[in-house]
């Protein structure tokens, strides 16, 4: 593919990610927020694939956009979404303070990572293969992987025990 097309794809996907993030934060109805977040997640998976993280991109579609977002939409339907519209909006001063805080966070994080930008301005030439990543997961990170499976099991048990009416 031509570099021009790659750049265009990168900026298009970045715009989609940011637009979806803004919609998630600003839209009033929780269901619209969820759909906006879904849009963000799909655009992000496209970005991952563009950046050579193919396994992460496909897993993002399956796990995040598929499973987690289905859970969110199910929870929204279970709890009734219209009551959110009755809440009065926040005072303007509070909104401005939160905006200033988020902008400060952005500036701080960019400043903190700025010294790495000089080190790797060019992107690495080769994307990493699934086999390489699998070798890492089941090799160096095997204990962490097993701990993670315990965490997911605890999550399942906790969710069932919390949401069940009668034990």
């Amino acid at each position, binding site marked *: 593919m031509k*570099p021009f097309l790659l750049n265009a794809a*990168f900026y298009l996907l*970045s715009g989609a*990610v940011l637009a979806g*993030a803004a919609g*998630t*934060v600003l839209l009033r109805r*929780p269901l619209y*927020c969820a759909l906006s977040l879904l849009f*963000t997640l799909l655009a*992000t998976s496209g*970005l991952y694939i*563009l*950046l*050579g*993280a193919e*396994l992460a991109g496909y*897993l993002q579609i399956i*796990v*995040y956009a598929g*499973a987690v977002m289905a*859970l*969110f939409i*199910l*929870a929204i339907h*279970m*709890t009734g979404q219209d*009551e*959110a519209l009755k*809440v009065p909006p*926040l005072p303007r001063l509070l909104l401005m303070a*939160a*905006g200033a*805080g*988020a902008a400060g*966070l*952005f500036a701080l994080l*960019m400043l903190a*990572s700025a010294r*790495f*930008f000089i080190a790797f*301005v*060019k*992107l*690495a030439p*080769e*994307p*990493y*293969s699934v086999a390489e*990543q699998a070798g*890492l*997961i089941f090799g160096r*990170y095997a204990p*962490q992987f097993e701990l*993670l499976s315990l965490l*997911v099991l605890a*999550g*399942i048990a*906790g*969710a069932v025990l919390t949401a069940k009416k009668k034990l």
Partner: protein
Amino acid sequence: MMNFLPLTESVSLAHIVGLGVAVFAAGAFGFLVRRNLIVLLMCVELMLNGANIVLVAFSRAPGAVDPQVWVIFMFAVAAAEAGVGLALAVLIWRRLGTLDIDALKELKG
């Protein structure tokens, strides 16, 4: 497997990290200003997503595969977090009849 890289000189690490940090900051802003419990959880997911973008960006540094593996680990953590968080939201809805976090005053001293 298609080789999509390099993205030429005009897209650098700073762009991708900037995007991730912007998504993180947007999630933090939403977490501060929204009051619906489920929307708050969505904002946390947005922040996790921003962190993932930064990890993928830094995995493009020469010789660094590890961050992509961490992204895959973060998917599992996020799934567990969403499951427990939404179960709590459903429980609160059933007990109080609302998801407005301003209505949760039982822990106030």
